[in-house]
């Protein structure tokens, strides 16, 4: 895992962006690492407990589309998932890019449920199923803003 920070401290002054990257083999059993990482990042970015749980589920939904299911019959290298977590000024953005061949798409029922979950839990999300110019494969992303504190 690598960490990049631009600017100074966490509080006061202009908005500062922090960034963390996580690279893992695109295997189903390793998705828990993506959930653990987003929980830690969201806590650091001062999301409340509900926001952290929302992000754990949202990142799972995002990445599940890019990993091969356990016990599946797809052979070969599953590829690598590169996740980038970037937060500044109360907003967390996660980008997930698969370097490798995409898995078989999930069935319609699961995709419908996954879309409903993402729409409810994050402020924006998107996906590019096709390959991109730099040779990487499918890419998904989401953005979620921290909930404003209750007025005193």
């Amino acid at each position, binding site marked *: 895992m690598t960490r990049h920070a631009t600017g100074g401290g966490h509080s006061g002054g202009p908005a500062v962006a922090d960034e963390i990257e996580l690279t893992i083999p695109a295997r189903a059993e390793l998705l828990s690492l993506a959930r653990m990482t987003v929980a830690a990042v969201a806590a650091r970015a001062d999301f409340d407990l509900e926001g952290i749980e929302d992000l754990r589920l949202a990142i799972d939904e995002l990445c*599940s589309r890019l990993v091969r*299911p356990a016990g599946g019959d797809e052979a070969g290298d599953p590829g690598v998932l590169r996740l980038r977590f970037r937060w500044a000024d109360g907003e967390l953005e996660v980008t997930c890019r698969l370097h490798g061949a995409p898995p078989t798409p999930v069935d319609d*029922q*699961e995709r419908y449920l*996954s879309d409903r*979950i993402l729409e409810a839990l994050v402020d924006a999300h998107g996906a590019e199923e096709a390959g991109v110019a730099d040779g990487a494969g499918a890419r998904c992303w989401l953005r979620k803003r921290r909930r404003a504190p209750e007025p005193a």
Partner: protein
Amino acid sequence: MEVRFDVTEHAGIPVLATAGEIDVYTAPRLREELLELARAGNATVVVDLTDVSFVDSTGLGVLVSGLKRFREAGGDLRLVVTQPQILKVLEITGLSSVFSVHETALAATAGARS
């Protein structure tokens, strides 16, 4: 992340107590447990998610498929859910009105016929 299963019986109804996290990695094991209960001739089952800390769309998909199978056989698949995050996921996917959701296994098995 592991998932664990334990089958007990309340009022003649099998209760599949599940613990851990249900995601794209562990959901196939839940599917197998439900298939086994169906193959054993049970019409109605209860899936107790009290000790489940996480369910994603893959896990929900397995539960919905199980629900269809048991209802087609004239029975039901009922849920026990107490975790707020899982109740929230059922709500936002519209599944809270599709499943029979209960707070305890005792309530879930009351009046059911296996």
